[in-house]
């Protein structure tokens, strides 16, 4: 009987060998993917096992951490808190024990939770010295005063809207507000009675205002007349016109090429053969529609792309791609060139347009993370300003600046005037809905230029207000005052 016994022994050996091989597969080959699987509760436990690092604005944290009771089923030690949550939500995003994280909280999670490889040395040191692991900080480029001005302005307005403000010379994002907003603190924990309830109520299907939508980055609106700045830049760059004060060969009424449809202006405004300065000042659809049509789809698209259209921006929080279409005929291009038809832009995109003009034609890549710090405030990474493109030459940029400054001085944008500061801007009232039945969007984009020629801020404001009287909505009336207070806040904080 000994021969079969030996074979059985071999068989038992094979069983054990199979287990050993499987174990090596699980615990060596697949170990990392299982360990870092976001559904693996350990990932969440680790994230909340130590106080999370903070997101910092102007040297002050806008986030915090508080201990939660870890009795029973709650195995998470710390909970995220937010200071002035609704105001900062478009910047921070949320980090919830129950619902995960998004935006900055998610993108910089490695630093905030202390698991990033760049913190490895410090963590190892802490482990040896017996200190608790601590998350690092994310220092943002935002300007607290500007953010407050933006959010308060939107809130006072009461309708849905968003603000994006940039530092034109660097691309630093100074303000990023969206209204209505939400308080990420309200669902930071994992209690079913409070946190889950708050989360459910905030979802779009339960709340038509969609408070969790980051309108400054993720919503695209038809930019309306503010897009005429891009069209004017295209005209100058392509040599269609060489100065702001040269009469354009524009008929009134203007019948769009290839159609019998007349492109109308809002009201009776002096647009026939107007100069570009006048056309921008009073916002002539006919002049800029014709410029777009004359340049053609290809040249308009090329210019729009230089301003950042048709591409997502990573700030590092992703923004939606703004749209300027391809393969349009002459009349579609004309409509698109006054910010109608398919043209759509995020508030960030329109702030980029204003900032490129203000920065003498140089578009800087927008960013909101200035640096990453370890828990003892050593800088781990620093973002350097980066040039994204040059939509227009310095000379043409200055021509465009003078045109935008005229708009604010004695055009549609007078509401944005600031004493002692040169402001350039452009209003927009974009129609939308079937047959333009819905209320238009009120837009305002602008920049402020100080006495020394520096331009510390460019801003874009959009208000979508279905409560307001249709006639009341105009970029100059609703949006320009908010842009003004944001610019004032930035200038005030520089002094």
């Amino acid at each position, binding site marked *: *009987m*000994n*021969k*079969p*016994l*030996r*074979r*059985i*022994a071999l*068989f*038992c*050996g094979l*069983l*054990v060998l*199979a*287990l*050993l091989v*499987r*174990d*090596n597969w*699980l*615990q*060596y080959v*697949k*170990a*990392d*993917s*299982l*360990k870092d*699987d976001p*559904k*693996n*509760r*350990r990932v969440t*436990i680790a994230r909340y096992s130590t106080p999370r690092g903070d997101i910092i604005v102007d040297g002050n944290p806008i986030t915090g951490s508080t201990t939660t009771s*870890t*009795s*029973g*089923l709650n*195995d998470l030690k710390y909970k995220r808190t937010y200071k002035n949550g609704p105001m900062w939500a478009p910047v921070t995003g949320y980090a919830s024990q129950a619902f995960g994280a998004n935006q900055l909280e998610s993108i910089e999670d490695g630093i905030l939770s202390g698991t990033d490889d760049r913190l490895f040395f410090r963590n190892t040191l802490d482990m040896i010295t017996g200190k608790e692991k601590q998350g690092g900080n994310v220092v943002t480029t935002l300007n607290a005063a500007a953010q407050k001005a933006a959010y308060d302005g939107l809130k006072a307005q009461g309708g849905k809207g968003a603000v994006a403000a940039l530092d034109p010379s660097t691309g630093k994002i100074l303000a990023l507000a969206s209204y209505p907003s939400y308080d990420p603190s309200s669902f930071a924990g994992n209690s079913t009675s409070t946190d889950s309830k708050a989360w459910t109520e905030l979802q779009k299907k339960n709340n038509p205002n969609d408070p969790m939508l980051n309108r400054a980055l993720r919503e695209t609106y038809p930019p309306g007349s503010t897009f005429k700045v891009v069209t004017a830049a295209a005209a100058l760059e392509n040599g269609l016109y060489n100065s702001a004060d040269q009469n354009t060969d524009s008929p009134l009424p203007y019948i769009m090429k290839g159609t019998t449809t007349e492109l109308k202006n809002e009201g009776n405004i002096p647009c026939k053969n107007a100069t570009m300065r006048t056309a921008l000042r009073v916002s002539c659809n006919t002049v800029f529609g014709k410029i777009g049509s004359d340049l053609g789809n290809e040249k308009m698209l090329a210019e729009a792309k230089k301003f950042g259209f048709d591409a997502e921006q990573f700030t590092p929080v992703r923004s939606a791609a703004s749209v300027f279409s391809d393969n349009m005929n002459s009349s579609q291009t004309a409509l698109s060139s006054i910010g109608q038809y398919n043209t759509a832009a995020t508030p960030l995109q329109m702030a980029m347009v204003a900032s490129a003009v203000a920065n003498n034609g140089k578009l800087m890549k927008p960013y909101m993370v200035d640096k990453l710090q370890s828990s003892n405030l050593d800088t781990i990474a620093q973002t350097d300003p980066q040039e994204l493109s040059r939509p227009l030459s310095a000379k043409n940029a200055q021509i465009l600046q003078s045109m935008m400054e005229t708009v604010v001085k004695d055009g549609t944008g007078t509401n944005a005037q600031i004493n002692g500061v040169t402001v350039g801007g452009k209003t927009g009232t974009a129609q939308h809905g079937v047959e333009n039945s819905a209320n238009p969007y009120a837009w305002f984009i602008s920049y402020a230029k100080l006495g020394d020629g520096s331009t510390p801020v460019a801003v874009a404001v959009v208000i979508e207000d279905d409560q307001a009287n249709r006639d009341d909505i105009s970029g100059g009336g609703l949006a320009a005052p908010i842009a003004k207070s944001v610019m004032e806040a930035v200038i005030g904080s520089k002094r």
Partner: protein
Amino acid sequence: MSSTTNTPTHHTSTIGAIGAPSRRNTELAMLVFAVVIPVFAYANVGLAIDDKVPAGLLGYGLGLGLLAGVGHLAVRKFAPYADPLLLPLATLLNGLGLVVIWRLDQSKLLQSLPNYVQAAPRQLLYTALGIALFVVVLIFLKDHRVLQRYTYISMFGALVLLILPLVPGLGANIFGAKIWIRIPGLGTLQPGEFAKIALAVFFAGYLMVKRDALALASRRFLGLYLPRGRDLGPILVVWLMSILILVFETDLGTSLLFFGMFVVMLYVATERTSWIVFGLLMSAAGAVGVASFEPHVQQRVQAWLDPMKEYTLSQKGVVGHSEQSMQALWAFGSGGTLGSGLGQGHSDLIRFAANSDFILATFGEELGLAGIMAILLVYGLIVERGVRTALAARDPFGKLLAIGLSGAFALQVFVVAGGVMGLIPLTGMTMPFVAYGGSSVLANWALIGILIRISDTARRPAPAPAINPDAEMTQVVRPS
């Protein structure tokens, strides 16, 4: 003693029956390690969880030491020539199991579950009872061949044990598999664990008698020896029995274990490979057949093929789905090569049965790949000692019983560990010695007791051999 008079005529790697030292001191030395390692592990858990050496350390150390000592003294007295490794290996696994069960008792998550009980004190009690049973086996089972007399009583006993969970009012359906019985006031019992031993005794007794008929009366077909139709009877009966277990108790593991054990013993008894082929075909046919209509088995297979889907369904609250398989895989993966360290993992996320069916996942997470490989090798060593015992045994009944018990032990380890690690579908059995559960601990200590008895008989120096007249006078002429 008289090895010269009995020089082997052929090479053998079996344990020399003659002149073997008793190796009791080796066993004692190994036992010291088997006690000291769990004691260190216990201190480790306490330091990791509460930053202090647990208050019960001394009691635990002394308790485990005492139990091991009693076991050792019993072996020294009643089975002095037994294999020296079996007792230390079982003690080590039992001790480590106790530590990990105690560690899971400390989990706040598990404490908050409705049916939480302090499992470690109970397991310690079961261990004491288990070692008592081990001693009883050694005292009263003077010779394993006595068991041969109980061949058919064992069969009857095994059948009763297997049917018990199906008796209304007595059986308990725990998590789909009906392999438990509930004794009021005492808790639940898994009779299958005891049936394993009874069946091994029955198979050994039965096959010893029938092996010649099964082996010799056969026709040759396609290189295989086909048994006669009527000799197929027993294997068909056992096959049917395991199919019935699968259908009524819905536990693939128990079914596989019993059938596998029978095929192994049948093969050893008859030395006919054809039985293995038959066995494999029949078990495959049976498993596939039953799986085609039994929803619980199907669900286990689905959970094995796609644990993530199973997890997602369970998180959505779909009845009948369990997150355990995926949680166990995450526990293993999170442990990595070296593990998180005892007391520092989160295997309590497995929740239900974390300290019984799934206890290996805690070992995996907290001791890592290194720890699991060590544990598996310890199991492998127990099986190896069992097979050696079978090789050394001098009587066919002893050989068959030893290989049956160690084969069943190996299959059980494979089925449970493979199930928890996602190698095969999950079943309702538990890891011998380390998992929480009275039946398992008691039955496996009894199993070790029987193996020790067989090995003692096998290694015991034979009385000076009577002079065999045949050996003296018959000249065997071998062509070289």
